[in-house]
């Protein structure tokens, strides 16, 4: 919407500021000026406005002038337009409001012997030519321009009919089903029984509050005119406009609530402009009104407002005096409210002293957005100026509580960042095929009703599709070393009779790695990241949590347990305290090929909802022994079926306090050993916190270790 400062200043000659300052002051009060364009000497500026939809009353020059008057404490003169005395007429024009729920007021004025011609500046307050030129508003004819002038000036839609094309008086009614109307845009419309129309005694002559009819429009030959200024119900207009795919200035205003009291004023303005080119008024203004609608627009019940409530909601001002009873009265009166003060001795007010004041506030007919006490509090704050309130902080006496899983998530995140992975956010959706491939339970994948595309047809049941897409994206852009992780939620549905009753959303972690490790450079020859690298990272994540034990295992090909997206031999399950918490391994070659990936991609997915059930590990420091550690190595020959994990557990089960640490020192295979056997060098370190270990003690420990590993099937090499 565009506003001329020249026009504003015509309403408010006493404006004490220049156009730039005015724009700033209006903007800070919510009447936002988005752009200011100078129009040349004596023409002021053009404002490009951005006014929120609740302030439809301010989307015109008089409305903006009212806001300016409130800001600077000026008096805005009431709009009046002097009309010549009407000639009496034998039979007054008739208006009947049949749709009493949808039309609150309909005024009609008959003008005879007018001359349709070009617009000019007719009189003070009707500078049609000047203002239209500055606004680049096209001039059409004095009649149409008059309605546009009333629209731009005071935001009130009006309409002019060629009186001689009307057959009988006006009836505001619902359309008859199948009734036809050619509207001003030249479109022949078939009306719906719910459409609100302005009709004469024979036919519809306009879509009420939306657009006039073609057959009754003003032409250069028009001699006699009927001026309509009315009030239509927002919902009725919105429904009619929507049904016909129309959005006009008039419908915009009526849909958001027009000023029922402005109808006669706008009618006078349009009539005065037309009569300035000759003609006469016939009969008094016909003014049909619906009392029930007036009750909820022009004659609403007053709203109670207390100064203490203003202070309770708004708080501290920078200015020490703050918001006083007088400032409340000034602001609201300037906006058109009428305030009746409650007696100061009223209960509850007297003890508040100067801060005790209360009013019954009568609301202006043009501010249908004002309904409640809080609306008035907002108006006070708005016109007083938001930036004149202090910056205070709420009193706060408690600690901060994070979400129960926040620390766990932060721990997982920092572990992965420290391991050299970047955090990424992938898509929430994937294709149905990817969903079926990666879902732990493919039957529970949740499809979308209105997906963005087929590739995004379902809620992701796994983070793997997104991870693979991001890895493929990097490889496509020739980024060959990728380490990514995503912390996100995955979805599964609960279904009955094909209807999704419930969708579960659970936290998960995916990580993906491909390329060289470390990154290749002149100093390092990289090697390809492999299964065991990812296993190590997964182990790091899991070991942040407190548990009795974690293990990794594999399943035979025919068990059907390994997820289909994983390589059948290079994949493992992760279990913590016996519960499956995830899977990892190399991407299945078939899936890699389908994504045109040649490299070995390593992927892991962990079910964080399960992992988060465990507490975080809290390290407890021990004294570091000052005494000499002693290392003893044990050379074992093992059957291929015996894994390190078994040895590890056997060592832990010994529970020797002086057994400080043990690990695999070497693994080797040799044809001279038995088929399927392998050799393993186990290194164990013994250390006591309070003494140097004696040889006899060490001998005893060694014997216990040998016994333990023998028991699980290891043979000792000498």
């Amino acid at each position, binding site marked *: 919407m565009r506003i001329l400062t020249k026009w504003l200043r015509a309403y408010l000659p006493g404006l004490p500021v220049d156009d730039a300052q005015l724009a700033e002051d209006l903007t*800070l009060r919510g009447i936002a000026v988005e752009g200011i364009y100078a129009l040349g000497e004596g023409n002021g500026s053009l404002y490009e406005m951005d006014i929120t939809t609740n302030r439809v009353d301010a989307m015109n020059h008089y409305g903006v002038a009212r806001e300016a008057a409130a800001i600077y404490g000026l008096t805005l003169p009431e709009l009046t337009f002097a009309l010549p005395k009407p000639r009496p007429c034998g039979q007054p024009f008739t208006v009947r409001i049949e749709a009493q729920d949808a039309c609150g007021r309909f005024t009609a004025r008959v003008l005879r012997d007018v001359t349709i011609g070009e617009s000019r500046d007719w009189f003070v307050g009707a500078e049609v030519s000047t203002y239209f030129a500055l606004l680049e508003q096209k001039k059409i004819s004095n009649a149409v321009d008059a309605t546009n002038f009333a629209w731009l000036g005071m935001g009130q839609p009006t309409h002019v009919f060629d009186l001689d094309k009307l057959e009988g008086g006006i009836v505001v009614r619902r359309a008859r089903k199948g009734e036809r109307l050619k509207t001003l845009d030249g479109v022949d419309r078939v009306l719906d029984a719910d459409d609100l129309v302005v009709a004469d005694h024979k036919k519809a002559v306009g879509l009420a509050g939306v657009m006039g009819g073609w057959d009754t429009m003003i032409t250069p030959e028009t001699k006699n005119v009927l001026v309509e200024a009315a009030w239509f119900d927002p919902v009725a207009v919105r429904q009619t406009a929507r049904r016909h795919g129309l959005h006009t200035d008039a419908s915009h205003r009526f849909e958001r609530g027009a000023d029922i009291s402005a109808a006669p004023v706008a009618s006078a303005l349009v009539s005065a402009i037309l009569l300035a080119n000759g003609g006469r008024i016939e009969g008094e203004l016909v003014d049909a009104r619906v009392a029930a609608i007036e009750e909820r627009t022009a004659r609403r019940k007053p709203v109670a407002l207390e100064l203490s409530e203003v202070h*309770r909601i708004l708080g501290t001002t920078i200015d020490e005096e703050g918001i006083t009873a007088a400032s409340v009265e000034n602001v609201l009166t300037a906006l058109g409210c009428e305030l009746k003060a409650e007696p100061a001795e009223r209960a509850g007010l007297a003890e508040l002293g100067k801060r005790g004041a209360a009013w019954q506030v009568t609301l202006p007919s043009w501010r249908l957005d004002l309904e409640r006490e809080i609306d008035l509090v907002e108006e006070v704050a708005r016109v007083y100026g938001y930036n004149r309130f202090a*910056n205070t*902080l709420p009193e706060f006496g408690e600690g901060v509580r994070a979400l129960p899983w926040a620390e766990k998530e932060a721990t997982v995140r920092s572990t992965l960042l420290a391991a050299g992975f970047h955090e990424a956010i992938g898509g929430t959706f994937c294709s149905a095929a990817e969903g079926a491939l990666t879902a732990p339970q493919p039957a529970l994948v949740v499809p*979308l009703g209105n997906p963005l595309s087929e590739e995004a047809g379902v809620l992701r049941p796994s983070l793997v599709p997104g991870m693979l897409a991001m890895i493929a994206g990097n490889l496509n852009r020739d980024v060959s070393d990728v380490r990514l992780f995503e912390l996100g939620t995955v979805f599964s549905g609960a279904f009955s009779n094909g209807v999704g009753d419930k969708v579960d959303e659970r936290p998960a972690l995916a990580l993906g790695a491909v390329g060289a490790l470390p990154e290749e450079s002149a100093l390092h020859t990289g090697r390809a990241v492999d299964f065991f690298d990812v296993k190590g990272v997964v182990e790091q994540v899991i070991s942040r949590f407190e548990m009795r034990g974690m293990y990794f295992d594999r399943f035979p090909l025919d068990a059907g347990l390994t997820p289909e997206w994983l390589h059948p031999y290079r994949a493992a399950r992760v279990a913590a305290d016996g519960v499956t918490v995830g899977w990892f391994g190399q991407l299945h070659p078939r899936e890699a090929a389908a994504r045109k990936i040649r490299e070995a991609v390593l992927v892991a997915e962990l079910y964080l909802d399960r992992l988060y059930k465990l507490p975080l590990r809290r390290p407890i420091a021990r004294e570091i022994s000052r005494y000499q550690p002693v290392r003893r190595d044990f050379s074992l020959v093992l059957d291929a079926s015996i894994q390190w994990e078994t040895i590890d557990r056997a060592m832990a089960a010994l529970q020797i306090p002086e057994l400080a640490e043990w690990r695999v020192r070497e693994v080797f295979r040799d044809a001279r050993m038995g088929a399927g056997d392998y050799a393993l060098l186990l290194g164990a370190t013994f250390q006591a916190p309070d003494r140097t270990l004696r040889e006899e003690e060490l001998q005893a420990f060694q014997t216990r270790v040998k016994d333990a590993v023998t028991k699980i099937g290891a043979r000792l090499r000498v």
Partner: protein
Amino acid sequence: MNFPPGHPARDTQDTLVVANQERRPLRDRLLLRTHTSPVQMRTMEQQPPPVRIVIPGKVHRNDAADATHSPIFHQVEGLCVDRNITFSDLKGTLDHAMKALFGSAVKTRFFPSFFPFTEPSADVQISCIFCGGKGCRKCKQSGWIELLGCGMVDPAVFAFAQEKQPAYDPKKISGFAFGMGVERIAMMKYGISEMGSLFAGDMRFLGQFV
């Protein structure tokens, strides 16, 4: 929640919905939230005041992706409800938060806006972090950048919560709420021109933030 029937915000064309919900009553149909505001009401229904929460969350809209739009994005909302929570507390809290995000030299200014859940409502601008307020291309020479929306919780929202938690008496308590887009702040703070970069997992992009 506090949308009058027929209000434009009730339009759901930007909402992604779960399939096969047609036979369920409208209010039980499953969809992807388009903003994090429902958490505010849920929290109030579950516990009496005082409430002070910060709600970060992922939201989804049926929006085509372009430089500044993505079907996935994140919001951070805040809600503070207690006795004696005022508009000046809202101002002070957000001023503090913006200084924590963008440095202590940043100034804030508030001006009237319109949101369905708050009244009074405000848009908050910060002094331009690129030019310090002198005016540059990034701030369209205004010296200010609009960053978030906020306001005092509308009494009608409390009245709604009161049905389950009677302590939300709009005559006795008050509160403020605010919301901001995480991507927008990140894009501004780090000079990111395409929102899609935040969701592509490109190692070269992510490597810049190490």
